[in-house]
Structure formats: structure tokens, C-alpha cells
């Protein structure tokens, strides 16, 4: 089986089909390690990526005023048990452009490997980017996954990100996102993680509301079982009149797992407002009993509640 086939065969695990690579209307990049296995662009999109011995490096630009109709698929991963992958990418969504990026991170057989991503995302005035990142890991753990990103959201621009790691055992995950929002801009960051075995999860998301009437939401849902550990930090700062932010973290802990949540809110303007809520614990007893009173076993009830939270 080729490296391309090895990676794309698990695409359905993150909600995609390998046939997307054959569709000429759909832009894509497939990277294995530091090799680009496949790529396609579409009108309005510039993909300037290159292979180096240390990383896949480059730039992606959605040109001003363009709406990319089909999602742009970015498949990165490792087709082997060991190895390293580093990606350094700058993304420019120019003024009034709109795009949706589906990033598939695939590590089906990794046992001792590393995946690092360093991204800089610049969303111009009135532009919109929806970034969905889905991870698929095999059962082995042993990965070191370090996605770091800085995002600048221009005047009236929108950024929606949705990170999910719901299958397999990752090993160690260390996310660090910094998002700055200008006037009338919107940032919504959602993360859903199901950690197992000895997984170690560190998630830090920071939203800085710099502009007037800017808005930010950090929503995190983490379920931990076995001996997994998680530390979730959600930071929102509001610096301008009418800025509104909210941090919402929920962690469900099962087995010997341990979790901590650190919501930090800072307000630097009297007409700004930031709120937060955090809940850590076992599955809600009332939810559990309600489902059991309809005939579900305790195991079925927990499974249903957890799947709902991570949806």
C-alpha cells in the first residue's frame, strides 16, 4: 500500500472520503512526513508549499473577494509507526474572501512519532474563515502532537475553529492558540477531545478582543478516561468598548483520569464584559438517572451523554 493510500484509507474516520482527491472542484494538500504526496488548487486560491528536509513550509492565500465554494482539504500525517512531521504555514484570507478549511491529521499506525504545526493565520477585513481540524490516531498512543497558531482577525472578519480528537489514543497533545480580534470581528474556538489510557492533554487558547464590539467564545469539551490527564486553559482579554467574551469549559472525568480547568478573564475597558463557566466532574447524575429511568443501562447512559457532549 502506498503512503498516500495508507493515509487516505482512514479519511472516513474524520468524516471525509478519499474520493475528494479526485474531484477537480476541491482543493487539497496531502503531506506525509515532510513530503507532499498530492496537491490541487482551485481558482481564487494560491498554494505555495514546498518540501524541506526539516518541514513542509509555505503559504496559502485566498484572494480578495473570492468565495471558495468547496472546502479546502489539508491531509497531514504519518503512514509509518515512527517519524516526524513539521508544518510551517502562513494562511492569508484576504479582504472579503470566504473559505472553509478541513484539516485532517492522520496517524493510524504511529507508535513513537512527532507532529508539529506552526501556523500564522491572517484574516482580512470582512473576510471569513472556518477551520475544522480532525485528528485520527490509532490505539497505540506514543505521539507528540504540538499544534501552535497565531490568528489575526481583521475589522468585521470572522473566524470559526473546531478542533476534534475523538478516535484513538494520542499520547501527548499540546495545543497553544492565540487569537487577536479587531473591531466588530468574531472569534469562536471550539475543541472536543476524548482522551484515553495515559494520554496527556494541554490545551491553551487565548482570545484578545482588541477592537470595539469584538466578540470571542472559547468552548471546550473534554472527556477523560483510564489514566488520562488534561489541563485546559481558556484566556479571554477585552480591551475595547463593547467587547464581549465568554469561556465555557466542561470536562468529564472517568476512571483514574484527572483534569483541571483554568479560565482566565481580563477586562481593560469599563464597557467590555467577559464571562466564564467551568465544570469538571463525573457524568451528571441527573442526566444519567433520567436515561436509566427510560431503560438504558448505566453504561449505555454514560455513552450517550458523552457522545452528546463531544458532538
Amino acid at each position, binding site marked *: 500500500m502506498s503512503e498516500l493510500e495508507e493515509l487516505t484509507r482512514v479519511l472516513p474516520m474524520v468524516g471525509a472520503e478519499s474520493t475528494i482527491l479526485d474531484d477537480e472542484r476541491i482543493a487539497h494538500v496531502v503531506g506525509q512526513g515532510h513530503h507532499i504526496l498530492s496537491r490541487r488548487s482551485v481558482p481564487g486560491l494560491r498554494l505555495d508549499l514546498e518540501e524541506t528536509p526539516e518541514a513542509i513550509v509555505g503559504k496559502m492565500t485566498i484572494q480578495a473577494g473570492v468565495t471558495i465554494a468547496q472546502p479546502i482539504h489539508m491531509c497531514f500525517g504519518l503512514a509509518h509507526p515512527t517519524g516526524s512531521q513539521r508544518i510551517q504555514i502562513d494562511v492569508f484570507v484576504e479582504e472579503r474572501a470566504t473559505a472553509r478549511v478541513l484539516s485532517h491529521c492522520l496517524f493510524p499506525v504511529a507508535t513513537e512519532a512527532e507532529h508539529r504545526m506552526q501556523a500564522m493565520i491572517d484574516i482580512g477585513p470582512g473576510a471569513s474563515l472556518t477551520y475544522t481540524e480532525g485528528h485520527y490516531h490509532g490505539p497505540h498512543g506514543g505521539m507528540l502532537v504540538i499544534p501552535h497558531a497565531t490568528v489575526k482577525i481583521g475589522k468585521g472578519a470572522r473566524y470559526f475553529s473546531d478542533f476534534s480528537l475523538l478516535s484513538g489514543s494520542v499520547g501527548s497533545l499540546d495545543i497553544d492558540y492565540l487569537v487577536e480580534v479587531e473591531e466588530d470581528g468574531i472569534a469562536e474556538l471550539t475543541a472536543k477531545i476524548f482522551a484515553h489510557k495515559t494520554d496527556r492533554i494541554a490545551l491553551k487558547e487565548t482570545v484578545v478582543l482588541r477592537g470595539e464590539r469584538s466578540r470571542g467564545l472559547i468552548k471546550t*469539551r473534554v472527556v477523560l478516561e483510564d489514566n488520562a490527564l488534561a489541563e485546559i486553559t481558556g484566556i479571554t482579554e477585552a480591551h475595547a468598548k463593547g467587547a464581549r467574551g465568554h469561556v465555557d469549559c*466542561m470536562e468529564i472525568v472517568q476512571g483514574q483520569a484527572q483534569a483541571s480547568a483554568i479560565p482566565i478573564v481580563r477586562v481593560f475597558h469599563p464597557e467590555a464584559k467577559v464571562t466564564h463557566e467551568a465544570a469538571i466532574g463525573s457524568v*451528571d*447524575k*441527573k*442526566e444519567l*438517572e*433520567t*436515561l*436509566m*429511568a*427510560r*431503560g*438504558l*443501562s*448505566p453504561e*449505555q*447512559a454514560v455513552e*450517550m*451523554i458523552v*457522545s*452528546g*457532549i*463531544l*458532538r
Partner: protein
Amino acid sequence: MVEGAWYVVISPLLGIRDLTFRVSDQKILDRLDLTIQPREIHALLGANGSGKTTLAYLLMGCDGYVPAAGTVTFEGADLLSLKMHERAKLGLTLAWQEPARFEGITVREYLTLGRSNSNPEPMLVQVGLDPDRYLDRRVDKALSGGERHRIELASVLSIEPTLAILDEPAAGIDMLSINHIINVIRTIKENGGAVLLITHQEEVAAIADSASQLCNGRIIFSGDPAHVIQHFRGRTCVRCDGEVYGYVRT
């Protein structure tokens, strides 16, 4: 017994005898007796703190609700020896006064729990909610209290219970929609089920076949709903001590 005659003994659906439940030294339920027959709607009235919801939780087997004494039989089986979901499998269910909210779970999923081939639409229609608007909504905080209550009743209806314990089913329901709630209760009975109806609302209690008044953890008056409502109305319990019930008219 008359020699040569045949007697048919109909065992009750639910039989509660001498049921006692304590929290620390305080008796919440005190030697409570109650019987419910198949297809009977039995209204349970009582002031706040009289033990109505405690009885509901104890019958359903909620966590921490273990009686200090007494027996409960359900269709002849020892209910207290069963776990919560085992009681539900027998046909017992509970609609909470403050129903739980579920992140991510749709109304469609909630109304078809474990029965993926069932059609939830008639249940929503029965409680006065439009399936096109509600089936794909989530059973979460975005629903109003009244909407959530109606979905809870639709959920109870969907499992065709043998005995449904409804704890204040009309709480938060506007006056114009009370008839939907009453219709649900009647439908449970038409489907062959019985209802233990915990309520403060007289127009809801009035549809029952029988009623009881609970006071300080004991049933102090039972009979026709109209009489029990009359007994309950305008009186304030000041003391229940053994066989002596102290009341004042207000």
C-alpha cells in the same frame, strides 16, 4: 371464605407498605402505605416538603434513596431489590419536576432511546409541539422550561409505561396548554398504563381516578379526588404525630 365459591384476587400494580425513609434522624417518609391498581390514575397531593418527590425518587431507585424500612411490590415483584434501569425495564418510569438538559442530544434521539425504529412524531404532536420544529433541536438549555416539560412527557409516552410517576407535570406550562398535559395522562391510561400524579394543580388532580394527601411523610387522607382536593384546600397541616393529625383552617 364461602365454601365452594371462586374468588379472583387481583393484586395491585404497586403496593407500598410501611415505607420509611430517613435523612439523618428526620423521617421524610413515615410508615407510608399506598396502593395503585393497573390503569389507575392516582393523584398525590401535599404541601411543599411533605415527601412527594422523595417518594417518587425512592420508587424509581434514584441514587441515595434507600428506605430504612418497608416493602414495595410492583406487579408482585420486590421493587426495592432492583436497580434503576431494571425497574424501568419492568415498565416503571419517572418524569422529573425539573427535567435534565442534555448537551448534544436531539429531541428525536431522546424520544427513541434504545428504540431506533420507533416514530417520535406522534408523541410530540400529543404534547402540542410541532415535530418539524422540534425533532432536530437539542434537549439543552435553549429549550424553555415549558418546552422541556412537554418533551419529558413525550418521552414518557414513547415508552408506553406500566406505571408513570409524573412529578408536577404541568409546572411551567401555560394555562392554554394544560389540556395537552391532561391528554397525555389520559393516553398513558388508554395505552394500559397507570399514573402516580404528583401535582399542586387542582385541575390536573381532578382527572385522577383516586387521590391521596401526603403530610409529613404519611398518607393522611385518601379517596375520590374531589374529596381529597377539598380536604387539602384551605387547610394547613401543623403537626402529624402518630395517629393524631393537627390541622387548622386558613
